[in-house]
C-alpha cells in the first residue's frame, strides 16, 4: 500500500471526511499517520472538533491498537518563508518581502509556486526518517484539491520546471515529481452515486492516467441503504393497494386509506433513485479500479462517526496491505512516541 495517499473528488463529496477516516484506518496497530490539508480551510480541525491547526504537526487522534493520527495544515506562505530561511537565511527581510506583496505574489499569483510548496511539504513528510532510519510516518494522507484541479496540482512540476528553469524551486519540483509518479503515491477519488460526480471521477482518472500519476481507489461515499427494490415495488403498485391499506390498519396505523398513495409514490421515487444509482455503479465498475464504499451517516459526521467510517475502511481491507509496496523500509507496529516533533 502506497505511503502517500492523496484523496481528491468532486467538491462536497466528502474528501475531507474520507481522508480523515483513511488516516484513522491506516493508523491501527500502532502505526503513525499524518493527515495534511492544503487549502487553508481548517476542515480537519472542524472534523476532529479541535482548535484551528497551526503550521505544525500535532497529534489529533488515537486509533485502536495504539496508533496515532497527526495533522498538519500546510500554509504556502509559511512554507515559502521556511524555504527562504533555509536557503537564504533571510531573517527579518522575509517580513519586508511580505510587506511589499512579494510573498503574496509568489504564493497566490505566480502560477504553480504555491502548489509546489504544498506538495513539497507533504512529500518531505512522506520521506522523512528518524535517527534509526525508519520513516517518521507510516502513511501521509492528503486532503487534496478537487478532481477538476488535482492533476494540475500534482503535475505542477512540468509547469514550474518550465517557468522556473533553474534554482531551488526547480529542483524541488523535480524531487516532488519523483515521489508523486512512483508507486509510493496513490490518488483516490471520492464520489457519490450520482451522475455528475461519477462523470467527474471518470474524467479525473483519465487525466491522472494521461499525466502518469498513480490512481488508487474509487471511494463511493454516502451510500444510502436500500429498503425496497423495484420488483417489490412493481408488485406494490400493481393492484395490491387495498391489501396494503388493510395491512397498515392491522399494524395500527389510522387513516391508512389516504396513506397508501403517498407511501407508494415515495417507494417509486426510491426505486428510481436505486435505478440511477445502479447505472452509476455500472459506470464506476467499468473504470476497472479497486473500490471502497462508505455508508451515509444519517446524523452527520462527528468524531464517533469518523471512527465508524474508519472501521468500515478496515473491514473492506483498506490498509491491510503493508506499507512496503514501493520497496521502502517496511515497518509494522512501532513504539509510540519515538517520532520527533517536526515543523515547529
Amino acid at each position, binding site marked *: 500500500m502506497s505511503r502517500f495517499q492523496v484523496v481528491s473528488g468532486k*467538491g*462536497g463529496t466528502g474528501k475531507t471526511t474520507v481522508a480523515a477516516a483513511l488516516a484513522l484506518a491506516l493508523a491501527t496497530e500502532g502505526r503513525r499517520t499524518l493527515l495534511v490539508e492544503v487549502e487553508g*480551510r481548517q476542515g480537519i480541525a472542524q472534523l476532529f472538533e479541535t482548535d484551528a491547526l497551526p503550521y505544525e504537526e500535532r497529534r489529533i487522534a488515537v486509533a485502536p491498537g495504539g496508533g496515532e493520527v497527526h495533522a498538519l495544515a500546510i500554509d504556502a506562505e509559511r512554507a515559502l518563508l521556511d524555504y527562504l530561511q533555509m*536557503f*537564504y537565511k*533571510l531573517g527579518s*527581510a522575509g517580513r519586508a*518581502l511580505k510587506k*511589499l*506583496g*512579494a510573498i503574496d*505574489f509568489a504564493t*497566490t*499569483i*505566480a*502560477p504553480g*509556486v504555491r502548489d509546489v510548496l504544498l506538495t513539497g511539504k507533504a512529500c518531505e513528510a512522506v520521506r522523512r526518517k528518524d535517527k534509526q532510519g525508519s520513516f517518521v510516518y507510516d502513511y501521509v494522507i492528503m486532503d487534496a484539491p478537487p478532481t477538476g484541479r488535482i492533476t494540475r496540482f500534482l503535475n505542477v512540476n512540468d*509547469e514550474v520546471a*518550465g*517557468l*522556473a*528553469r*533553474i534554482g531551488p524551486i526547480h529542483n524541488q519540483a523535480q524531487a516532488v515529481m519523483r515521489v508523486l509518479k512512483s508507486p509510493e503515491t496513490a490518488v483516490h477519488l471520492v464520489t457519490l452515486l*450520482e*451522475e455528475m460526480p461519477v462523470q467527474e471521477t471518470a474524467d479525473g482518472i483519465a487525466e491522472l492516467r494521461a499525466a502518469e500519476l498513480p490512481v488508487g481507489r474509487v471511494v463511493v461515499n454516502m*451510500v444510502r*441503504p*436500500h*429498503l*425496497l*427494490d423495484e*420488483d*417489490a415495488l412493481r408488485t*406494490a403498485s400493481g393492484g395490491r393497494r387495498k391489501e*396494503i391499506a*388493510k*395491512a397498515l390498519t392491522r*399494524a395500527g*396505523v389510522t*387513516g391508512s386509506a389516504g*396513506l397508501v398513495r*403517498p407511501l407508494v*409514490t*415515495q*417507494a417509486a421515487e*426510491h426505486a*428510481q433513485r*436505486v435505478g440511477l444509482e*445502479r447505472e452509476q*455503479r455500472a459506470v464506476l465498475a467499468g473504470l476497472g479500479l479497486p473500490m471502497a*464504499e462508505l*455508508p451515509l*451517516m*444519517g*446524523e*452527520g459526521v462527528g468524531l464517533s*462517526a469518523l471512527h465508524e467510517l474508519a472501521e*468500515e475502511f478496515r*473491514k*473492506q481491507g483498506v490498509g491491510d496491505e503493508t506499507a512496503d509496496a514501493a520497496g521502502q523500509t517496511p515497518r509494522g507496529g512501532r513504539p509510540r512516541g519515538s517520532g520527533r516533533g517536526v515543523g515547529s
Partner: protein
Amino acid sequence: MTPSTDVAAGLETDALLDDPEIRIVVCCGSGGVGKTTTAAALGVRAAERGRKVVVLTIDPARRLAQSMGIDRLDNIPRRVEDIEGDGELHAMMLDMKRTFDETVEAHTDAERARAILDNPFYQSLSAGFAGTQEYMAMEKLGQLRARDEWDLIIVDTPPSRSALDFLDAPKRLGSFLDGKFIRLLIAPAKIGGRAGMKFLNVGMSMMTGTLGKLLGGQFLRDVQTFVAAMDSMFGGFRTRADATYKLLQAPGTAFLVVATPERDALREAAYFVERLAAEEMPLAGLVLNRVHGSEAARLSEERALAAAENLESVGIVDQAAGKAGLGDPADPVAATSPETPESPLSPEHGNEPSTHEPPQQEPHEHDRTSDTPAPHGRGDKSSDPSGPPTHTEADRHDTPATDTASVQVSVEVSVEQLTAGLLRLHAERMQVVAREQHTRDSFTTLHPEVLVTEVAALPGDVHDLAGLRAVGELLATGSASTPAGAS
C-alpha cells in the same frame, strides 16, 4: 410532494422574472448546490414568460449543456431551441481562457496582444490562476450587459469552494494586475528616484534578486515582459472590474443565494447574505434546493417504525423470508460476501434468501448505517427455515457476482413485508425531513428577513428542457407550499 415550511414570507420568483426593472439575476452559493441548474431553469421560465433572456453558465453538466445546445466552447450565446411562447432564451458556457484572450485583444493593438498571448506567464495565469474564472465571469457579465441585447441576464457563478470567492477573487486579481508589487517589478528606477522611496528601492533589488534565484531569472523576465505588455491595459482592467462591481450594486440586479438544506451549504448562504448586505448588493432571496418532503407526513417516523415492527412480527409466523424484496442487489461489499444461502453459518441464517444487505433496519439511522455492509439481516426475522421463498432473485439485472449467489428463488413478497418496507422507507424519509427542517430553522433564526423558495428534491438528474421547466415551476411555487412537514 410539498415540503414543509414555516418561513414567514416566500420569494415570488415569477414576479422577479417578470419585473422589467430587473436586468441581471446572479445565482450564487457554495459548490454543488445546484446553481447552474437553478440559473438554467430560471432562464427557461423567464423566456417562456415572454422575456428575452441570456443565461451565462459555468461548468454545466455535460448532458445539460448538450440539451441546451451549448456544449460547444465558443464563448458566444446561442439561441436555445424549443422555447415556448414569444420570448427567447440564449445560453452560453463560459470559456475562461478565451474570455481573457478576447479581453486582451479588445484592448490593445494586434502586435502587443500577440506578445501577451504568447507569454508563458500569461498562459499560466489565464489558464488557471485561482480567481481567473471569477474575474472572467464578471468580465463576461459586463460585456453581455454592455451589448444591451437582452431584457434579462442570468448568471451562474463559478464552482468555488466558498460562495464568497465570487466577490473576492476579481479584486484580488485586479489588485495584482495594477498593484504596487508588479509596478515595482517593471519600474523600480522610476519609483526609487522619488524621495522617501529609498526603502522600497533597497527592498526591491533584494527582492528581485531573491525571487530571481528562487524562481529562476527567466521566470522573472517573463513576468516583466508580460507586465510591460499589459501596462497599457491595467487601467482598463481595474476600471471595468469596478464598473461591473457597481453594476452588481445597482437596483436592476438581484442576487439569489442557492443552498441545499444542509449545514455547510446554509452556513455559506448565511455568510453570503451578510456579505451582500455589507456590499450593498441587492438580495432577492434564498433558493432552497433539493428539499425533501412527504405527503404522508402525518405519519411520524416513530409510528411508522412501530407499525413496521408490528407487521414483521406477524410476518415471522407465516412468512419466512423476512427480507424478501428488500436489499440492495448491487452492493459490492455484500455481493462479494462468502456467505451463500446454501451454506448458512448458523441455523438462524438458514432461511435467508439470496439478498445481500440487511433489510431489517434498525430504528436509528446511525445504527442502521453502521452495519449496512453486513451480509445478514437480523436473525430473529428468519426463524422459520421451512418457510416459502418469497422472491425471485434470478431475473434481476444484477451484477454477475450477485447472480451466482442468487440461485435460490423466491416468488412473492408478502403484503406484510411489502407494507413494512414502505413504512421503513417512509421513516427514513421522515428522518431526512426532520434533519433538513432543523438545519433550515437555524438559518431562519439567523436571517428571518430572507425570502425563501423551495425546490423539492427530484429523484433523478435534470438534464433536459422538460426537467428545467419542472424545476422552474417548483421555483415559482415553492414559496406557497402548505405546511406539511414533520408533525
